């Protein structure tokens, strides 16, 4: 068999798999069964300790596996096919292009904040300015394909939509405000555009379709290896929270304006850039947390300590503390606003 035929066969097999995954998700939506865990706190009563996470994981994976598979496959496809050289080309243009690219591209580029730090440094060093760099840093982990798909399927599509819009506003505000502070300006001056510009040429090699499809699936596999262990641990934790956390405590402390404040503070340290915040948020919501508090909870990403440590090495602590403060204020303000508008504060 010649190489061309082999490639065509590989392409067909890979496309078949991808369409099958899409088809299964569409089928699940037509049948309208839940893609999130369906067990309620009362279902855990009487179960022995070891059986609590087992029952919860079985409940979730028996119908939620397609959502996870779909989310990872889509994240892989998007990451592979999004034209990355566009960022290099336009990032060091003017400020507006910088912000536009940061907001438009960040959600498609990455899925966890660990890969954000080099990108953050890259945007800054390329001379695009501290503002777009911060916007990139805050936007990507909060509103990327994977988190939005999971938030939509596990919690609600309304909340997923609100999460995108609010992350966008907060990321943009943080970028603009920091670029106006004296310490932000100092960093920006340090990393001004070099007059020589980028010297190397970019001639991206166009791989064949079968190589790109295989690359996407391999990236999906890589992502799931990075994320799923934490996601599973998160599910185990949620199962115990659901089984033992008294509902009146959640109802008393995670509702109203104090609820938003508490959620915005505990959501942060709990945040690991691995979708755990979605599972935990869903668990707390089932126990009676208000929608406003849930939004504040989900926006805890900026106080991810490991991330902040790495970023502080590049731009020093003052900038990190400023974006943390802006993001925290954003999560509280929008948590309260969304809570009031949705009638669930």
């Amino acid at each position: 068999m010649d190489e061309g035929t082999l490639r065509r066969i590989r392409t067909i097999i890979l496309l078949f798999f991808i369409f099958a995954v899409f088809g299964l998700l569409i089928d699940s939506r037509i049948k309208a069964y839940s893609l999130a865990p369906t067990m309620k706190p009362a279902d855990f009563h009487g179960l022995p300790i070891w059986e609590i996470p087992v029952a919860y994981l079985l409940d979730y994976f028996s119908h939620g596996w397609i959502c996870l598979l779909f989310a990872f496959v889509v994240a892989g496809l998007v990451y592979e096919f999004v034209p990355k050289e566009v960022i290099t080309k336009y990032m060091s243009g003017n400020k507006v292009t910088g912000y536009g690219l940061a907001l438009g591209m960040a959600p498609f580029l990455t899925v966890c904040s660990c890969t954000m730090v080099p990108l953050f440094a890259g945007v800054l060093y390329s001379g695009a300015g501290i503002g777009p760099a911060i916007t990139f840093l805050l936007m990507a982990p909060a509103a990327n394909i994977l988190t939005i798909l999971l938030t939509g399927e596990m919690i609600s599509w309304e909340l997923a939509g609100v999460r995108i819009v609010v992350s966008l506003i907060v990321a943009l505000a943080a970028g603009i405000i920091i670029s106006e502070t004296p310490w932000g300006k100092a960093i920006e001056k340090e990393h001004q555009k070099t007059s020589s510009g980028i010297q190397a040429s970019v001639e991206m090699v166009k791989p064949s379709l079968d190589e790109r499809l295989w690359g996407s699936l391999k990236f999906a596999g890589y992502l799931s290896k990075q994320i799923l262990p934490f996601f599973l641990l998160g599910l185990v934790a949620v199962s115990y929270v659901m089984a033992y956390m008294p509902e009146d405590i959640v109802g008393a402390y995670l509702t109203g304006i104090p609820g938003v404040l508490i959620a915005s503070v505990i959501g942060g340290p709990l945040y690991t850039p691995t979708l755990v915040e979605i599972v935990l948020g869903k668990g707390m919501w089932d126990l009676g947390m208000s929608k406003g508090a849930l939004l504040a909870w989900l926006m805890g990403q900026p106080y991810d300590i490991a991330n902040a440590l790495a970023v502080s090495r590049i731009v020093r602590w003052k900038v990190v503390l400023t974006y943390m403060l802006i993001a925290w204020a954003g999560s509280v303000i929008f948590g309260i606003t969304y809570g009031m508008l949705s009638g669930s504060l």
Partner: protein
Amino acid sequence: MEVVGPDPPCQRCQALKKDVEKAAAKLKDSGFNIEITKLNMVSKEVIGKYGILVSPALVVNGVVKSMGRLPSADEIKRIIEKA
């Protein structure tokens, strides 16, 4: 040629470097003289020179050939042959 990624190297950058080394070893017999270096993308010099923002990236003879993806060993071989 250069493999560009953050330091300490991420898993995917290590995988790319390994694949590049494999492809280079294969091509050595056909008379290609390939030197492989790992560059740290989180440095002003590298960003300034190549403009690479998404890792891992592959640079051959000063030209960026791929970024943000893991080309297969076959693809790497073709990239080197064409350069």
